[in-house]
């Protein structure tokens, strides 16, 4: 038992040396997660803060300019041009210089004053229909605000019900607050799973795996020796992202570090288990890398990171019970923002433990089968 432990420790030490002694591989392990965290943090948001638009105002009345100045006052809508001909609309949209073109007909003010519905036409560049839809939504809320103030000024009474929105755990509904805690799990999984898959495949490709086999190491010991260093590297990666979230993006950490790290430990066990599983199937580094990529891609896309998990088709949701990232996202976000405790997260901890145990023992079994 004691000699087994010593062997495992020796292997762990060797594994750390193999990964960390090369400055370029140190770089590749620690710099990409930091860069990705910064880029994703700044880029990955469906919120719009700059909507270039052009206006085709045929009315030129006090009302139409009052409306347009309200639009410009929103700081999100940026007026690029005043169009004077119909055919310019397509010029501005086609060349992508304007996301929206707003067309106000010449009877706009007359109809307003007559108490008839006055139309504003909006044309959106639907090449990215998601962005266009968001921009149209923002535009309608400006119109709604204009309507409300117009109604109260013209004695039609205010809108009878005010909707007061309060948001728990994220007072300004900043999408960065949901995104960055999710990255703790996502980036760590990408790094760890690929690193693990590659580490065994590299030994196999370079022939050093055979050398390991003629030593007194048992398959279980080899596996532990491979798993532990990668889990430690994964923990360092996730801690780095956690620090960036707190000290660069200033997102307050509400929860307990014990709960978070317990969850991360289980998650890394599952991620490393999957990595070892892939590497025991792959014959070369190229195969290990590409298979790992083919596994990580759907796991990342279908984890609820970019799109809401509940709007996925049912059958995909049920396949995704095997996706460790899905549980990790839930744990990191809820511990980070909501201070969720163990009991609330039981539905995540249990499946992660099961996935970790299954993949690790599956990998150990495959190891043994390939060894003898």
């Amino acid at each position: 038992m004691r000699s087994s432990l010593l062997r495992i420790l020796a292997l762990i030490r060797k594994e750390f040396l193999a990964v960390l002694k090369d400055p370029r591989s140190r770089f590749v392990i620690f710099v990409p997660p930091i860069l990705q965290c910064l880029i994703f943090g700044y880029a990955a948001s469906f919120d719009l803060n700059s909507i270039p638009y052009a206006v085709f105002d045929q009315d030129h009345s006090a009302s139409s300019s009052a409306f347009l100045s309200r639009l410009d006052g929103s700081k999100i809508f940026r007026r690029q041009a005043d169009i004077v001909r119909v055919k310019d609309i397509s010029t501005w949209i086609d060349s992508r210089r304007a996301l929206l073109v707003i067309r106000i007909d010449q009877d706009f003010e007359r109809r307003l004053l007559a108490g008839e519905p006055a139309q504003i036409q909006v044309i959106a560049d639907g090449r990215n229909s998601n962005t266009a839809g968001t921009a149209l939504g923002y535009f309608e809320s400006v119109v709604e605000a204009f309507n409300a103030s117009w109604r109260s000024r013209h004695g039609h009474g205010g809108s009878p019900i005010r909707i007061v929105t309060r948001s728990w755990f994220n007072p300004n509904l900043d999408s960065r607050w949901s995104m960055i805690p999710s990255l703790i799990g996502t980036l760590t999984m990408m790094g760890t799973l690929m690193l693990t898959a590659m580490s065994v495949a590299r030994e196999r490709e370079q022939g050093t795996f055979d050398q390991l086999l003629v030593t007194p190491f048992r398959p279980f010991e080899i596996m532990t020796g491979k798993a532990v260093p990668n889990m430690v590297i994964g923990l360092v990666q996730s801690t780095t992202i956690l620090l960036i979230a707190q000290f660069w993006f200033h997102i307050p950490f509400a929860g307990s570090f014990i709960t978070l790290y317990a969850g991360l430990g289980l998650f890394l066990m599952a991620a490393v288990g999957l990595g070892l599983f892939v590497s025991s199937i792959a014959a070369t580094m190229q195969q290990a890398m590409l298979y790992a990529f083919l596994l990580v891609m759907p796991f990342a896309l279908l984890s609820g990171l970019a799109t809401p998990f509940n709007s996925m088709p049912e059958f995909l949701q049920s396949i995704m019970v095997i996706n460790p990232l899905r549980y990790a996202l839930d744990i990191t976000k809820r511990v980070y923002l909501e201070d969720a405790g163990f009991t609330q997260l039981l539905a995540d901890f249990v499946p992660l433990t099961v996935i970790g145990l299954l993949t690790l023992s599956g990998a150990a079994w495959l190891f043994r089968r390939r060894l003898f």
Partner: protein
Amino acid sequence: MTDWPAKLRRIRALTLKETRQVMRDPSSIAIGIAFPLMMILLFGYGLSLDISRVSVAVVDEDASSDSAALIGAFRLSPYFGVTVVHSMAEAKTMVLDRKVDGVLRIPSDFTRRWHLGEAEVQILVNGTDANQARIMQAYAQGPVALWSAARAGSVSAVSVGPVIVVDRMWFNENNDSHYFLVPGLIVLVMTIIGAFLTAMVVAREWERGTLEALFVTPMRAGEFLVSKFLPYFGLGMIGFVLCFLAGQFLFHVPLRGSLCLLCLASMIYLLVALGLGLLISTLVKSQFLASQLAMLLTFLPAMMLSGFLYDLRSMPVFIQGITYALPARYAVTLMQTLYLAGDVGSVVWLNLGVLAAMASALIVLARLATRKQLS
């Protein structure tokens, strides 16, 4: 003096060897064929940005006929699943346990204040998922407006308008998200095959020393590059055809530009990706490093910083600056325009020109980097 027949023979032999290697390795086939198919299915059927139904816990502190009617309006809405609870504490526990997404609270003075014209309801959302919370906030306008319109019918006249928005989404009237996913998918697939796969393959030759064995043959660096280009170019074009067919027959995305330009654009972008892959692998000469760099420099930008999913104009200025250096930005703009807007001269030629310049620069650089090793 160049001996052309011998040169061509060498290129042919090497290309054949490379093609066989691709065909024999199940992982190359997986990336060339299975990856595009997987992405098509995931993007086509798996991912949806819509929130289908929001579950909301209702706390009715007013308990009047008016508040009951308002709850009824929420029940009628296709966007809400309503659960009535008795206290805010209970509602908050449900939010924390993820049984509901948010809370609608009708304060006890709702009816009284409504008669004064200052009624309010509270929507409490779980900000952990900011996007969903914002959508829920927007959805709530519907039932509330419905209720006040119905209620106002008996009291005051104007409740909607006076300004009405008529919106039209050009290029995608039905707001079908496949329309922008398919062009972006082509770029993603080409990036993976061109850069990621190629970077690994060439780095492997460096790592195993088979490249040095090639150097003692009469083969020239240029011939080596051509023989590496051709098979992966073929594989990339297979990926393109798969995405194109899926766009035509599975998702019915219209192709409004010309097919020739679309093919030309994909080929040029594939050259850019291949050039990047070859350059990375020649510079680092290690499969692990090459794969990680290819991931960081090509795939992630194509996904996140290209305008495929996230709007570039809303990113901070320095990130926008970075995107100008990345080929994926031009490729996504080009593909989306060719597919949906048609052959818009100003957009097409500009982006095509930038991509062509990038492709030539990268190929020259890859050639230079390879020659240096020969000497």
